[in-house]
């Protein structure tokens, strides 16, 4: 899953962006190449989840970004190649073009954005540098904003004129391009006390190709052409209706019936059926999320001591045996219809993805050998024991996730074959993934054996890698439960590599350091990288202009979408 629009991406310095081109695959839009875009029409786009809020940075549902991207724009955005391109800014500020200036002591930086002239909010009011400053101030003031990442690194913002924004950072903040991905209108919100609870939460006003005109909770969100949009003659569509449907299955049925012209977020199992349908085209883009199983190396106990050793999973041979006994490719072939890639590290896309890093592939014979050698002896019930400890562990994932529950059952059966008992005990995501020590997240508190979920790093993976694999980030009572190193992986060399990667500016150096840390992580056999999925969307063949990309949702360029043939019949 990709993150919230304003939150979605942690990018890198512009000089490095060229490198990113290699890793993003582009799915060209469907439609006949001989005819140009057609104006007009209403596109009905099925969404099987409803955005709780449309206010940027007040939630992190993927669907929020999918919908509000049609109306709310930022200074920059990524293109299908993973490069930043200017939107409301004239150019992408870099050191080279003078947009970024490092202070004399090398400890601070200033970023200057020149804004495009004559841009109007959809209500006709001019967009100026004051709006950018207001957005920053509002997010720093409002405690209900979900993320202040990066923004709290900003000392102050100057607006020497209406079209210049000068951002003074307190530090060298290398993912600065990811910030200001959404801008809020000062003239609407400056007098509003509670932004997300106001009308803005449902109908955020922006500069994008469409205006959100109707929000019928649980039913539909209607957006209409923005008459003040900066690109002449665009958008092509008159209207998009985001239709809330109860499930992906209903969305597919409606797509096949032609009741909707596009739908968001399919799963692999739905592809064989749709690929046969001549009226439907698919947009399949690699997604940066990696499904993993984490193994707790410390004792499974609430408020665990990070230095304790798990009686079963503390043994690296047993952990490695579990990896050998995990039939990743079979799971992909059979449950994901071959439409995913075998995982090998937590960073799968972008410049930092370690090249050539692999993980033990399926070989249950090796598992048995390893366990035999390590002294785990099979008992009468087929389960191994060592020094009176039974090789029995429990796996936990989010309740109700069909694919994950099936994977669990496959693993339970596979692990039984090598003499390890795998019990299943799932929890709702609000419990398993609460990410809060106070709320009792079992991963934080160390009260789990194996957990299975997915996590998505950003273009700049530093935060993910540091937070999850640095030994300083092991949550325990002594540090107030900070950090997300849930496997309790400790390796001084890996720590050093992560620290290096975080302080360097040279991309190649950073990539090499991450590769080193992630190799050490795989050597410790604490995580099973199951598979990397794709973002899959589907459209009727008369829709064109869409283009899936790795780091942003499918609706990032709705101004280019158009529809041929008859207007939709609803």
């Amino acid at each position, binding site marked *: 899953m990709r993150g919230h629009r304003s939150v979605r991406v942690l990018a890198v310095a512009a000089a490095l962006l060229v490198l990113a081109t290699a890793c993003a695959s582009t799915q060209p839009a469907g439609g006949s190449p001989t005819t140009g875009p057609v104006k007009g029409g209403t596109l009905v786009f099925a969404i099987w989840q409803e955005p709780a809020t449309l206010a940027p940075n007040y939630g992190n549902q993927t669907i929020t970004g999918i919908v509000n991207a049609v109306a709310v724009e930022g200074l920059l955005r990524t293109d299908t190649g993973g490069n930043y391109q200017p939107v409301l800014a004239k150019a992408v500020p870099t050191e080279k073009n003078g947009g970024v200036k490092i202070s004399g002591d090398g400890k601070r930086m200033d970023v200057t954005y020149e804004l495009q002239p004559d841009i109007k909010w959809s209500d006709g009011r001019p967009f100026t540098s004051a709006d950018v400053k207001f957005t920053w101030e509002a997010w720093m003031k409002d405690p209900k904003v979900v993320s202040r990442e990066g923004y709290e690194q900003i000392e102050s913002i100057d607006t020497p004129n209406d079209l210049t924004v000068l951002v003074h950072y307190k530090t060298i903040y290398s993912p600065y391009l990811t910030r200001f991905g959404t801008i809020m209108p000062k003239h609407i919100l400056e007098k509003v006390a509670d932004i997300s609870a106001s009308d803005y939460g449902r109908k955020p006003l922006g500069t994008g190709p469409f205006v959100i005109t109707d929000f019928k909770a649980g039913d539909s969100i209607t957006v209409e052409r923005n008459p003040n949009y900066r690109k002449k003659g665009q958008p092509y569509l008159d209207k998009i209706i985001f239709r809330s449907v109860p499930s992906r299955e209903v969305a597919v049925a409606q797509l096949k019936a032609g009741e909707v012209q596009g739908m968001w977020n399919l799963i692999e199992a739905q592809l064989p059926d749709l690929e046969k349908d001549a009226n439907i085209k698919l947009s399949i883009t690699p997604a940066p999320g990696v499904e993993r199983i984490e193994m707790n190396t410390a004792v499974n106990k609430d408020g665990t001591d990070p230095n304790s050793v798990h009686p079963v999973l503390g043994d690296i041979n047993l952990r490695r045996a579990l990896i050998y006994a995990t039939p990743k490719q079979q799971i992909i072939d059979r449950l994901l219809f071959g439409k995913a890639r075998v995982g090998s590290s937590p960073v799968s896309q972008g410049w930092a993805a370690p090249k050539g890093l692999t993980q033990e592939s399926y070989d249950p014979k090796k598992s048995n050998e390893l366990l035999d050698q390590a002294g785990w002896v099979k008992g009468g019930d087929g389960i191994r024991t060592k020094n009176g400890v039974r090789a029995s562990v429990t796996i936990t994932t989010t309740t109700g996730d*069909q694919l994950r*529950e099936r994977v669990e059952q496959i693993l339970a059966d596979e692990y039984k074959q090598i003499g390890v008992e795998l019990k299943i005990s799932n929890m709702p995501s609000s419990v398993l993934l609460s990410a809060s020590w106070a709320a009792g997240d079992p991963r934080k508190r160390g009260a789990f054996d194996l957990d299975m979920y997915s996590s998505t790093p950003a273009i700049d993976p530093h935060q993910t890698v540091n937070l999850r694999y640095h030994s300083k980030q092991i949550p325990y009572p002594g540090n107030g439960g900070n950090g997300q190193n849930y496997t309790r992986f400790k390796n001084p060399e890996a720590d050093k590599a992560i620290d290096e990667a975080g302080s360097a500016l040279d991309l190649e150096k950073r990539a090499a350091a991450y590769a080193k840390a992630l190799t050490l992580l795989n050597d410790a056999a604490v995580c099973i990288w199951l598979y990397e999925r794709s973002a899959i969307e589907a459209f009727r063949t008369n829709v064109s202009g869409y283009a899936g990309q790795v780091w942003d949702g499918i609706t990032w360029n709705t101004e280019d979408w158009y529809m041929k043939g008859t207007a939709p019949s609803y």
Partner: protein
Amino acid sequence: MAGSAIAVPLPVAPQAVQRSQWRMAYERFRAHRPAVAAVVVLGALAALSAAAPLVSPYDATKVTLAEIYERPSLAHPFGTDALGRDLATRILYGGRVSLAVGVLAVTVAVTVGTLVGTMAGYYGRWVDSVLMRFVDMMYSFPRLFLLILFGVFFKGMTFGVIILVLGLLSWMTTSRLVRASFLSLKHREFVEAARCVGARDRRIIFRHILPNSLAPIIVAATLGVAGAIIAESTLSFLGLGIQPPTPSWGNMLKDAPTEMNIAPWTAVFPGLFIFLAVVSINFIGDGLRDALDPRHVVSRRG
């Protein structure tokens, strides 16, 4: 009652006569053909489930990824599921869980419900007030909501927990029905008469009133078993019931919405067995009601 000077016609007969009443009930039940057929069906279901390892050559949890979603055939009469497991085998094993959950949960519910309803209906006054406020309170929580929260609280339900939770969340209907019949019966002549002759509370309750409230309790209990089986499947449909890989008819249906198009048999057969079991239980309940209703013979005239 002995030694009573007043000749009051008591609808509830002494021991010997009552025993013959049970025999008559049995005769009447046997005459109820759908109920008898239902007993046969349900008995067969239960027996097959209990003997599952003897009946089926397959392992209910063994994954065979090469045999995913096979259509019904001779080797797999009901086809295979998303993990290549024999559906028929899983239904047999699932029957163990589902039937047991249904019966045991209702046993809990009827016991608690009868107890509460009796106390409230018979003693009235503050006992009634307190108990009925409690019932109101239990009722005012949407049941599914409590089930969901308990599912979360217990981190996925085990067999015992699900029985207890379903039972403790579904006794209220019984208690209200029992109370209602107590309210309408306790001022009846035969009860007043029994009280006049000095019968103790316990005797009045168990001898005179409860037997006369049996019909609604039985109706409620049969519906309860059906309800408990359905509640379990609903809970599992939401992912909070019996956890896989242990099959229950409920959790086998969890993936029905997504599988309906690809492999309808995975969605049809477990549902069919729920249907079959619950229909049988309902017919049995109906037969029992007719059989136990002492005014049954009269009712045939209506």
